[in-house]
């Protein structure tokens, strides 16, 4: 069978960065072709070329065997190429349905008027087919990143493309939604759609992909069949070495002093009477399904959102936290799950982003900044976290997604808080760097820091946590010891209480 | 004596000229026992804003209205409303194309500017280049004063050339910059006419900053212009009688309310003054600070 699409010898440079050099890639109808590589390997760039966002500097693109030029997103669409971008590209002030059908709104009265009803109906149909419970009329800006990601997926599906590119579609999702997505992918496959799938979650590759192409430093490394190639082989193709996978060691921290205690935290319907504590040197995992309220708890502790009631104690002292400034002052740091909106000052360079929470430390008398010291520190973290960037003065927005995430992590590592709350810290981070970050978190815990890790990836929670708190619908439904099983977590995560209670409230 | 409520809608508010009109109106109000309000738009181009002010004044149901029209026609419907409500209207500063105002207290700006041209010609010896810095390209006073000056020069002084007429909105700083540009562009310039207070002050500022010795003739008075004339930086200026305009307007309104008949025009007059004549009682009386 002819390839749907062939990329031959693609090259692309940005000022100061050679993002792609002589890259080959092809996609058959009805296959899932995984594209793998470390952060900054050039995966997104390659896909942006394929979808008309960037123009290539070199190489050739063939669609159904014929050379083509893809000059704009619109042209790509017309050729049947759809893409889910790694960075969410949504209009936050518009509703989900309006986002999905932007540019293709159903019309009435001879095309003069929008048919909002048809729009919402069509959207509802897509949501239903995805088993997604979301109102088509909800403004996208009010959704969590995960739900926004689902809207992006729905949008891509609505194009009914022959070629569908998914750039880290599951970075923000947890197992339940991932399972739904895979059902959809399998259905599309059966329909003959070719899918390019980018992800840093290795298990997914095994589950759905037919072939795997690996890139490293903007160059093509090779293409292998997924079924017969071992994970280790793929990883070594990606990172150029093999990774050791350390087992979880749960230290005994029962004698350590309590670093953070949360008592009876409440906030609207999102947080209901949450109490827990973390000891120094402990890593507490916070698990739950999408919308369980984990992010809300973290933000409330951090003072990012006001809370209705509840006490926060740090090192045995009650602290009044009403702003993030208070929290940082009390020694609490919070890494947000949404780096673009809440983590990075994208227009500023890497150095300033890393120093953003610690500027006071670099301020000399008279308000003067010690840029030299800032540079040294930034370069240290660029090395330590292997952030791929031409220099520490590169603007953050020009970094690849995973490298942006590393910059935000570096910001909090530099701040040196006693209590660190990491919300989806490894979102979009490649396997190699992930294990580096796990090591780092373990080292921080060993130093006596208290760490809360919120993650939608159960393996990650299991791999890291000394204890696991599970939430469901705003309540803390249970506390499990480290090394608990996935089944135990899922059981607690689905322990809904509200079905009954809700009826009473509504009356 | 009744305490009459009289609304004065002027062409401007913050400028010293209008403040002097206001002072005259206040003086008459105190004398005759009336309450006077005084309002005017931001710039002399905002004809519609002036209509809104007039409309609001009518809603207030004052006993009489004094009105200085920015446009001679625009206010006709509103003036009709005043007439229907039996509110006497007195025009001041410039007239309107309407027989509704009972009288007009005004100065002849064209003649006043022509007098400035005569004085300029005299001071520069009847030949050479001169320029005008005026306040507004489209307002009645702006047009009349520029035309009055330029036409008089053309008619009576063939050896004098008006090389540049520029407008600075009556803003001292902007007029300063304009005057400097004109001076630098025309090193052989003999004199500049500043067509209102802000323009005249700007011209003198520009002259001083460039250490120029040209002849400056101003318009209106105010502490700064008086000071410049005192010091010789300005040769002289035309003054109208703004205090008199305000005073006569209110006085005429009260006469009308008492049923007295009014002359069709109350000419409040204008004068040329310089260092020598500033002290004359008749002139000192019409100068304001």
């Amino acid at each position, binding site marked *: 069978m002819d390839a749907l699409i062939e990329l031959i010898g693609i090259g692309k440079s940005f000022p100061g960065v050679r993002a792609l050099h002589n890259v080959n890639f092809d996609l058959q109808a009805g296959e899932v072709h995984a594209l793998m590589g470390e952060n900054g390997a050039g995966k997104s760039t390659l896909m942006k070329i394929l979808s008309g966002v960037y123009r290539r500097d070199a190489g050739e693109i063939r669609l159904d065997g014929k050379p083509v030029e893809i000059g704009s997103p619109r042209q790509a669409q017309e050729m049947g190429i759809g893409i889910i971008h790694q960075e969410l590209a949504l209009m936050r002030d518009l509703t989900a349905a309006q986002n999905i059908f932007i540019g293709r709104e159903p019309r009435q009265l001879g095309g003069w008027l929008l048919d909002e009803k048809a729009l919402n109906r069509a959207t509802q149909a897509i949501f239903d087919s995805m088993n997604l419970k979301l109102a088509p009329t909800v403004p996208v800006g009010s959704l969590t990143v995960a739900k926004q990601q689902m809207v992006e997926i729905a949008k891509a599906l609505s194009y009914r493309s022959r070629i569908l590119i998914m750039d880290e579609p599951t970075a923000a999702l947890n197992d339940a939604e991932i399972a739904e997505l895979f059902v959809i992918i399998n259905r599309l496959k059966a329909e003959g759609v070719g899918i390019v799938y980018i992800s840093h979650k290795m298990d997914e590759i095994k589950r759905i992909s037919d072939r795997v192409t690996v890139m490293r430093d903007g160059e093509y490394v090779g293409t292998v069949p997924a079924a017969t190639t071992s994970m280790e082989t793929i990883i070594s193709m990606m990172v150029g070495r093999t990774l050791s996978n350390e087992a979880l060691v749960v230290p005994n921290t029962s004698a350590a002093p309590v670093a953070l205690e949360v008592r009876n935290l409440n906030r609207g319907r999102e947080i209901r009477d949450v109490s827990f504590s973390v000891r120094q040197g402990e890593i507490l995992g916070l698990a739950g399904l999408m919308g369980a309220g984990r992010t809300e708890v973290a933000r409330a502790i951090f003072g990012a959102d006001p809370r209705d009631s509840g006490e926060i104690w740090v090192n045995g002292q009650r602290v009044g936290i009403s702003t993030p400034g208070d929290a940082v002052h009390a020694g609490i740091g919070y890494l947000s799950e949404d780096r673009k909106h809440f983590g990075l000052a994208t227009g500023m360079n890497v150095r300033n982003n890393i120093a953003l929470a610690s500027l006071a430390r670099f301020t000399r008398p008279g308000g003067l900044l010690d840029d030299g010291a800032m540079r040294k520190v930034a370069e240290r973290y660029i090395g330590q976290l292997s952030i791929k960037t031409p220099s520490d003065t590169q603007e953050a927005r020009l970094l690849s997604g995973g490298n942006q995430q590393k910059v935000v992590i570096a910001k909090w590592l530099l701040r040196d808080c006693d209590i660190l709350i990491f919300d989806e810290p490894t979102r979009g981070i490649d396997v190699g760097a992930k294990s580096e970050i796990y090591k780092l978190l373990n080292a921080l815990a060993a130093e006596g820091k208290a760490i809360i890790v919120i993650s939608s990836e159960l393996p990650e929670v299991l791999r890291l946590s000394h204890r696991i708190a599970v939430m469901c619908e705003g309540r803390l439904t249970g506390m499990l010891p480290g090394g608990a099983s996935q089944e135990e977590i899922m059981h607690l995560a689905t322990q809904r209480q509200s079905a009954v209670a809700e009826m009473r409230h509504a009356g | 004596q009744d305490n009459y409520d009289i609304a004065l809608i002027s062409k401007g508010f913050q400028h010293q000229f209008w403040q002097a009109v206001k002072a005259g109106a206040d003086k008459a109000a105190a004398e005759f026992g009336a309450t006077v309000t005084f309002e005017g738009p931001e710039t002399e181009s905002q004809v*519609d804003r002036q209509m809104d002010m007039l409309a*609001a004044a009518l809603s207030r149901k004052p006993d009489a209205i004094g009105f200085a029209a920015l446009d001679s026609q625009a206010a006709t419907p509103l003036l009709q409303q005043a007439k229907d409500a039996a509110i006497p209207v007195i025009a001041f500063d410039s007239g309107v194309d309407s027989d509704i105002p009972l009288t007009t207290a005004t100065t002849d700006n064209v003649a006043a500017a022509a007098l400035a041209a005569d004085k300029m010609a005299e001071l520069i010896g009847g030949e050479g280049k001169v320029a005008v810095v005026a306040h507004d390209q489209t307002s009645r006073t702006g047009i009349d004063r520029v035309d009055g000056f330029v036409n008089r020069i053309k008619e009576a002084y063939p050896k004098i050339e008006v090389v540049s007429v520029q407008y600075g909105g009556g803003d001292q700083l902007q007029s300063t910059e304009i005057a400097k540009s004109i001076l630098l562009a025309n090193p052989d310039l003999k004199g500049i006419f500043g067509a209102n207070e802000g323009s005249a002050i700007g011209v003198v500022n520009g002259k001083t900053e460039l250490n120029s010795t040209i002849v400056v003739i101003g318009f209106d008075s105010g502490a700064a212009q008086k000071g410049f004339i005192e010091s010789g930086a300005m040769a002289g200026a035309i003054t109208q009688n703004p205090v008199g305009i305000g005073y006569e307007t209110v006085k005429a309104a009260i006469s009308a309310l008492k049923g007295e008949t009014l002359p069709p025009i109350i000419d409040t007059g204008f004068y040329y003054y310089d260092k020598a004549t500033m002290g004359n009682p008749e002139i000192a009386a019409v100068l304001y600070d």
Partner: protein
Amino acid sequence: MTDIAATPAKSGIRISGAFHRLLAFSGLIALVVVFSLASPNFMQTQNVLAILQATSVNGVLAIAATLVIITGGIDLSVGTLMTFCAVITGVVLTYFGLPLPLGIVASILAGTGVGLVSGTIIAKLKVPPFIATLGMMLILKGLSLVISGTKPIYFNDTPGFTQIAQGSFVGAIIPAIPVPNGVMILFLVAGLAAFVLTKTALGRYTFALGSNEEAVRLSGVNIDRWKIAVYATAGGICGVAGLLIASRLNSAQPALGQGYELDAIAAVVIGGTSLSGGRGTVIGTLIGALIISVLANGLRILSVPQEWQTVVTGTIIILAVYADILRRRNL
């Protein structure tokens, strides 16, 4: 559009969306109540009509500005464009002596044409809207003076012309409420603009552009075309404003217009539209424009000295917007 009242109140007490929408008027209502109590002349029919009449021009300009601001842009040329359109009408009707309908069409076409040019400079040359429309503001200011010969053009030869703003259709039917046509035109323009914003593709892209232009582009939409369309529409609306002001003054005043953009934008922002784009309503803009004219009128009726009028106006604008912010926060 992007309605915040979509989700129920989180506090125990549920307040209906309608009531909350009413509260948006609270600043305006408070002003009206205070002025009514302070002066018996304020609530007279004639004065209410005067306020509405005073709102008409700024209201129409503010609606034009609303469209542009929702896209995340800004239009500083609305005031001088209005004047330019009025001058064009003057040329068509008075200099060329053509019939009235042609004058009306000319004004709206002139506005649309200039809007097309501004939009093209912004969309194609990527000049920031602030600069493009600032430049256009100056160009139009100069051209109006040039074309008119720096003097007003009167419409004395076109007797029906003043009826556009000053006549009263409504009054001809119900003599008790002689609402001037200018006011009805304002409402008409507002209704049309609201309709376009909420029901048509142009409206949808207006919000989409302001919300995330890059996302719209990545969705394959020809953003340049829609952006130009928005500026052209806004320009056409300025043409309507040009007719209104020319009709009110029975003349095209070529020097007027600069500075009006600030009042228009102020009405938009007081009405709750965000200068960063993506959200906004026409009704909000109308309320904003009304707040401005009620304030001006009320303070004049109360004979507040002019220098204090500005102080009070400034203070109340801040307070009104602050009250609106509190209302939204408690939603």
